[in-house]
């Protein structure tokens, strides 16, 4: 795929990961998260080994029951002896960069199950950094022997929406208290779903929320090849999870039988991934010592002395990247 080939030490890591050594897989994900650029050949090699494991994104507001839903879905899948990997993303503090990653607690039933691989990731503040790390982490997991991969994020911002862009199927989880029909048509997280789930259906007027979502999402979309199912469930009580799994399988089959749609998604996913990789690299170069940071510092001086506007300075910095034509 590239001219880069892993060195021998990396080769043995690759072999270990491919042989199912979960610790090496966990460590590789740590290197990806730390922005270690030396993993590039390894990730490229794993990309070649990528299986067609379905990747399901689960997103929704905090407290909607995403981890609890996952816990229930994992139970169902494990009952069929299917192996499951989970990337659970929790927000980082924008002030300190720290995080409390607590999603594993909701999935405690599977804590000692070697057929379930749960990795917690902090969203971190870096522009695109998380999406890059999540993409590479998914590459690691997709090269391993899993039957389903889930990625769970709090759906509150652009970063999180981009993370679920890595998924083949996106489940948006809301609750009966998630707001009325006006909220339902707000742009953003509610536009990304392939499956919608009104969770905690025992706590309120779930049917009204289902109706509001149906009104918002199905109206005018009757001709669509995939009409997102709108389901309700009580994940904590294990109610309605069969229908969720059935919808996930249906969507997987839909993609398999609509290769044009699937490849359009692949294309979109690859575009997002490339954009994020480029942005992350530029961001890193702005911060670490080198020509781009020198240029930034130079123009920072100019702008700070009010000898030019920030826009002029930014355009000059962009020019040094060799990008012209605009």
């Amino acid at each position: 795929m590239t001219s880069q080939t892993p060195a021998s030490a990396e080769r043995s890591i690759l072999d270990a990961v491919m042989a199912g050594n979960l610790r090496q897989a966990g460590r590789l994900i740590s290197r990806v998260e730390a922005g270690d650029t030396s993993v590039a050949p390894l990730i490229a090699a794993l990309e070649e080994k990528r299986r067609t494991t379905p990747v399901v994104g689960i997103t929704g507001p905090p407290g909607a029951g995403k981890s609890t839903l996952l816990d229930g879905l994992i139970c169902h899948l494990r009952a069929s002896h299917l192996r499951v990997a989970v990337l659970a993303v929790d927000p980082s503090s924008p002030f300190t960069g720290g995080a409390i990653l607590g999603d594993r607690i909701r999935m405690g039933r599977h804590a000692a199950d070697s057929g379930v691989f749960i990795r917690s990731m902090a969203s971190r503040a870096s522009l695109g950094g998380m999406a890059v790390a999540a993409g590479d982490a998914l590459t690691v997991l997709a090269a391993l022997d899993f039957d389903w991969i889930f990625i769970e994020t709090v759906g509150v911002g652009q970063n999180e929406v981009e993370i679920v862009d890595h998924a083949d199927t996106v489940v948006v989880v809301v609750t009966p208290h998630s707001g009325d029909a006006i909220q339902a048509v707000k742009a953003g997280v509610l536009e990304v779903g392939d499956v919608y789930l009104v969770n905690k259906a025992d706590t309120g007027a779930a049917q009204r929320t289902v109706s509001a979502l149906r009104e918002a999402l199905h109206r005018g979309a009757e001709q669509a090849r995939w009409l997102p199912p709108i389901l309700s469930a009580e994940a904590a009580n294990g109610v309605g999870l069969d229908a969720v799994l059935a919808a996930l399988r249906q969507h997987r089959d839909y993609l398999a039988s609509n290769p044009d749609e699937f490849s359009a998604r692949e294309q979109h996913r690859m575009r997002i991934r490339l954009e994020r990789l480029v942005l992350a690299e530029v961001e890193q170069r702005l911060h670490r010592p080198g020509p781009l940071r020198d240029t930034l510092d130079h123009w920072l001086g100019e702008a700070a002395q009010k000898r030019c506007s920030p826009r002029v300075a930014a355009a000059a910095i962009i020019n040094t990247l060799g990008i012209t034509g605009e």
Partner: protein
Amino acid sequence: MSTIKIRCMLAMLGTDVHSKGIRTLAQVLRDEGVEVIYLGEHNTAESLINAILSEDPDVLGLSFSTSTYIHYTRDLLDKMRAAGVGDVPVMLGGLIHPDDEDALRELGVKGIFGPGSVTRDIVEFLVSVTGKPLASQRATAP
């Protein structure tokens, strides 16, 4: 901004449910820029080892408020070594009696923070045992 973070896994073993201390520590560490993988109560040696494999923490912190900590710690460290994750440093906090510290260190415990410990000590231990900087230190670095 560098993306190197200390990843610290915090957990309690067995039937010990006095989690106030470990929950407070989780928040303190978050505020220091640490990524805390919080596992709460009711863990077993097996579940912690499974979590270490996938989460790759730099440190495992256990809190005890019952007197059975030597038994639990020995069992855990034996199983960690057998599973090939014996290199992950383990620290203990909570109601650890000073008389037990030598025995615990002999078992392989790297950090002990009993009654009277301050969170600053724990943070400094994390920095020294991981060799990684804190986010708060990095913010002031040139």
